[in-house]
């Protein structure tokens, strides 16, 4: 099980997966918006999305858990 964390502070712009989806390493899970830029947060391993901990529009700080991936 892996916790996917925000690499920087920002707002959640788009969630590109659904709970239960199977993702590959490198596939975008969430796109943050920080300082007017889109920051994709990709999965760091293959696995299934067990939980998405944020909603679109939420503000996250660096290090906050965005999703849990079960590999």
């Amino acid at each position, binding site marked *: 099980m892996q916790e996917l964390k925000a690499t*920087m*502070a920002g707002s959640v712009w788009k969630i590109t997966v659904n709970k239960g989806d199977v993702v590959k390493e490198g596939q975008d899970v969430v796109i943050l918006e920080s*300082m*007017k830029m889109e*920051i994709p947060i990709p999965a760091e391993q293959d696995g299934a999305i067990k939980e998405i901990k944020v909603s679109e529009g939420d503000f996250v700080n660096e290090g906050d858990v965005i999703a849990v991936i079960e590999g």
Partner: protein
Amino acid sequence: MIKKILIANRGEIAARVIRTCKQLGITTVAVYSEADQKAPYVNMADEKHLLGGPRVQESYLNIDKIISIARKTNVDAIHPGYGFLSESSIFVEKCEEASITFIGPPKKAIEQMGSKIKARNLMQQAGVPVIPGTEEAINNIDEAINIAQSIGYPIMLKASHGGGGIGMQVVQNEQDLVKSFESNAKRAQAFFGNGAMFMEKKIENARHIEIQLLADHFGNVIHLFERDCSIQRRNQKVIEEAPCPCLSQETRTKMGEAAITAAKSLGYTNAGTVEFLVDEKENFYFLEMNTRIQVEHPITEEITGIDIVEKQIEIADRKVLTIKQEDLNISGYAMEARIYAEDPKTFLPSPGHIHTFSIPKEDYIRHELGVTENYDVTPFYDPMIGKLIVKGESRELVVNRLKEALLHYKVEGIKTNIPMLLKTLDHEAFRKGNITTTFVENQLNK
């Protein structure tokens, strides 16, 4: 008579406008979001008012709130700065309804130049050269493929209502186009509320050169020469200089005249900038018109001795522009480096806490600052934290002075692009003035 101004903006540009207002004896009202409570500009103004939460929709784009504060504080005029509401025709309309002077061009000019497709067509009609491209919005990918074939690759795919490089992409071939058309249209829809796309032929080895204009309400239009803004990353400017190091006097004159023609054809007033792409043979093509003050305006002020914000206020106050074109001369050289809170290699943003901040001071250095020591750079706004402007008698002197100044520009706690700026200043091609808009991606990082 304008005696009190609300500045509907934040950061360095708000501070910049307040400074000129003070010199003119004009009372100022600052507005700020919860994230900007400690921003330096807020306490520079005579009055300050909270707009709301940190997000732009709750604060700097909240038209109703800004107008209500403007009414409550009894201001005569609103200065919109750049970005945010500066190019919103709806905002201009709301100002008019409240009998508050909008310091900027008429609503119609903003609307016409806000749509890049419309702007292209209008400029073509006025006799200003445009880049070969589409005359109408492209509806779907099939249409895009057909049009691309007739223009010929490589192509620039652009959002008609775009800005800041968003929704814009170079397309090398049909495969690229298929991949990027939908995603850019979606992005444009999300960012600008309008997903209309168009295409232009990509001008290879082009420089970005723009002409600063001033136009009053009595038909007087002058240009304050050019700025070369070819050093860009992610289609956003990083270093700007004035004058351009390589433009012939003949082309300079022609571009100035074309920009004036553009402004006159629109019935334009106030400060504005016509951006051009210039190829190796000095053919120039209209890119867009920015109907507001620009980030890089200080370098023009440094080479002409004109305070552009002062002129904006005077023009809005319906004063006659007394400076004549023939009175204007370029004096020396000026260069601006934008200091961004970002990784110098990946250009990814770097919000965070600035614990140490110290800047060089010399009589040839000008600072425009949005931050201070012990300050949180938040992720809600643009990453630009300041501008460093240097002037001198020659380009070589200015490059050396800028380098020296950057070596003494200390920002600790966040990452900045200063290493990238220094690398640029040391690059042989840059030193020679031999640069195009692809310098950063093709030459600097190789």
